[in-house]
């Protein structure tokens, strides 16, 4: 039962606050909407930053990460400006680099979506990695065991298998949540480990292993069923872009999107309005799993050596978390975020080969970026400094 004469500490629209132009300097950026009419939009630089914080915060996070990364590069005795220049020159301005960037971007958009969708339902899907692996291994299994099918059918069936395996893997977490109340963060982390162990066995002398190879791997996808890039454009990229747009549209325009977001914003009100939390949880997780599974399938079908090997997933699933948070949960935001992360990943080898800088610096950059975007405290500190005290004291656990 919040009074309007008590400025709401949370759930305030970003455009409702901000320091008025004529107010004294200590006038707080307290968002207040009262019956007497909303305050004027904030002006000046602060006003600009507040209005565009959805974009400002991620950019700030990346800039800060690069600044800290610069110190690390300098500490190794290199010129950071030059290093960054080389990094992005390689990722965007060379043909091989651009292809690598776009090949990395494709699965990153998908796993980014796999984290972003559950965020809308109030779930934190840490299991993109495991879901990607489940999709990849499922597709590899089908692609090999049904290898005698006509090529287009084989590709389609393999993709469907990847989608289903990913969805299945994520649904385990969803069902544990809806039936037993197991927190999805715990179950998805565990399912990641289970996927690693299970697949290790499957491809290392297990039923899916190609024993003619030295390294643990599945059989290679039939040569004519591989999705070779068209110039620098990987097949999966347009698919991923279309899916990002579709997800954004689904959330904004469809009744399903409304159901999902209602559950995410207030599950009690959802229950009151007859919207099923169980259904929303399962749909969100299964869809996410399918998208991550597709990412794994594309890794198999469009990246050399067209086999499921251990390490194929890299840290894609975890990069998805960075991407979703960098995009602040916005499905379309995953596109630029995935391109950025993809470019950094694709350019990392050039740091080592051309300059001798340890490529792990890219991991550090991504980790710092993640840290920055996942600390909403920073945003609050910057934009709502004056209300911080109230947020702390007036924020209630019971309401």
């Amino acid at each position: 039962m919040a009074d309007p004469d008590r400025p709401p500490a949370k759930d305030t629209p970003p455009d409702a606050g901000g320091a008025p132009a004529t107010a004294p300097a200590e006038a707080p950026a307290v968002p207040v909407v009262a019956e007497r009419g909303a305050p004027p939009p904030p002006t000046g630089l602060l006003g600009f930053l507040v209005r565009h914080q959805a974009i400002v915060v991620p950019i700030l996070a990346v800039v800060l990460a690069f600044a800290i990364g610069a110190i690390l590069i300098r500490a190794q005795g290199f010129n950071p400006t030059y290093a960054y220049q080389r990094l992005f020159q390689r990722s965007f301005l060379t043909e091989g680099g651009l292809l690598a960037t776009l090949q990395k971007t494709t699965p990153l958009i998908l796993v980014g979506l796999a984290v972003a969708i559950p965020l809308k339902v109030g779930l934190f899907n840490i299991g993109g990695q495991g879901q990607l692996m489940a999709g990849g291994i499922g597709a590899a299994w089908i692609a090999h065991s049904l290898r005698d099918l006509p090529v287009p059918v084989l590709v389609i069936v393999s993709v469907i298998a990847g989608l289903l395996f990913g969805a299945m893997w994520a649904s385990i977490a969803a069902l544990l949540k809806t039936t037993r109340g197991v927190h999805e963060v715990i179950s998805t982390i565990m399912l990641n480990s289970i996927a690693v162990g299970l697949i290790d066995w499957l491809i290392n002398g297990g039923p899916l292993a190609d024993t003619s190879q030295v390294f643990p791997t599945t059989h290679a996808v039939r040569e004519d069923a591989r999705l070779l890039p068209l110039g620098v454009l990987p097949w999966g990229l347009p698919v991923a872009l279309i899916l990002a747009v579709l997800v954004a549209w689904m959330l904004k325009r469809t009744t399903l999107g409304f159901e999902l977001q209602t559950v995410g914003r207030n599950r009690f009100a959802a229950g009151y309005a007859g919207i099923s939390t169980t259904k929303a949880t399962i749909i969100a997780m299964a869809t996410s799993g399918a998208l991550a599974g597709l990412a794994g399938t594309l890794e198999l079908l469009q990246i050399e050596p067209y086999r499921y090997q251990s390490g194929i997933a890299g840290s894609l699933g975890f990069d998805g978390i960075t991407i979703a948070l960098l995009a602040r949960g916005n499905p379309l935001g995953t596109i630029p975020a995935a391109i950025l992360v993809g470019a950094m990943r694709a350019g990392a080898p050039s740091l080592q080969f051309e300059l001798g800088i340890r490529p792990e610096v890219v991991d550090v950059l991504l980790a710092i970026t993640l840290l920055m975007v996942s600390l909403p405290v920073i945003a609050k500190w910057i934009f709502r400094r004056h209300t911080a005290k109230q947020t702390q004291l007036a924020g209630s656990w019971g309401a």
Partner: protein
Amino acid sequence: MTDTQAEVHEAGRSRETLLEIEGLSKAFGTVRANEDISLRVDRGEIVALLGENGAGKSTLVKQIFGLMTPDAGTITIKGDSSRIKDPKDAIRRGIGMVHQHFQLVPVMTVAENMMLGHESTRSGMLDLDGARDMVRELSARHNLSVDPDAEVEDLPVGTQQRVEILKALSREVDLLILDEPTAVLTPQETDELLGVMKDLAAGGTSIVFITHKLREVLSVADRCYVLRQGKVVGGVDDLSSTTTSDLASMMVGREVVLRVDKAEATPGETVLSIKDLHVRDDRGLPAVDGFDLEVRAGEIVGVAGVEGNGQRELVESLAGMRPPVSGSVHLGSGADAVDITRSNARDTNNAGVGHIPEDREKHGLVGGYSIADNLVLNRFDEAPFAKGFIRDFGAVREYAEGLRTEFDIRSPNVEAPAASLSGGNKQKVVVAREMSARPRLLMAAQPTRGVDVGSIEFVHRRIVEARDAGAAVLLVSAELDEVLSLADRIAVIHGGKVVAEIAGKDADRTEIGRLMAGDSDSH
């Protein structure tokens, strides 16, 4: 006014001025939340701050407690007019505050909560024994019994509030600020709290308390200030010659009809019949225990009872949010009757049940959604608000604009988030949504809790209009006055069942009070 109160009042006058505020102003953008406010609190007196939602009461006390800095004006505490830097500073200077939403850690015990923020240690370990002793000592001194080892989440709301008060008192408080302390309390708990306030004042502690409830002001306060639109528009130094309607009209600036004007009910056929309903509460204990009731078209049946006697579980069960253990609920009569005993929320709604939930913030609204989306919260996927599975924003907006005008929802547009509305206007959104579907049965649970006087009148009028249009109305309220003024028939609930049914016009306050307390022999 009682003798003790009069003494305190006189004593307060002769004693020092504890708090003096002069020319206080505070603006948020162009909104003047407080404008040139001046007031005084003497030692040992209870001062009420009365005003509608949005009048600036909370902003005022937040500045006293150091949560906000005034734009202009001075706050003088015990002669010291230096700026109050933060709540810590305010506490150091003898100000304590109990927030409307409690600041307790639910999984900790009372003693642990009490020591939170100023933990004392003994040989490197937390001195829990010391904290326990402190709780016992404080409870004994202020006659506020709490178990120091109870976990806060297990305690009833009234007791949690007691812990908050004790916590404030543990820091040598001269002035205690209570922000709408009775909003969450049962009538019994309210009476206890009012008693505690009187005792504290008699012991020399001054109290500033914010409330909407006029009766409480008259029963406990020595003086009161009335705020409207950020200004002090009136003060009453002698409350003994004041009536509730005097105060109410000062608050809203116009006469408020506290008695609801309504014609004699003309009940038609039975719309709701509840038979031998049993429902469990969250802990799995029987809450509704053999409840029988019928509600007919064109009548308002009020369920009166002390909170916690199964009202919440009853309403949730009828609304399809809490499956009952046994019993039956039917909508309609004769051959047309529909069994909604185990229908879910949506099916119940579609069967013609409108539900104004007890807790509008938790159940009734999605704060981050626009007013428009909240107005179609349980119809978003029906025509014309959706074509197939694609939502039609134009249709939603048009419909919402109509309701905004019809239900006088004070917002410049329907795109504003519901969270930005005042309590009264939030309730209007809920009422508009539930009533606009023209339900056969309207269930209203605590429909005016925490809303301003103007909105109370509005909601009451709408409920009567729904009745006159032929709806059956089931009103559940902890405010006996509300039940008495609205209901055509009153069902008194105690221990999860109806202990008496009384015609509204024959209802007698004391008689109902006795029945609510479980004294059923008297009827």
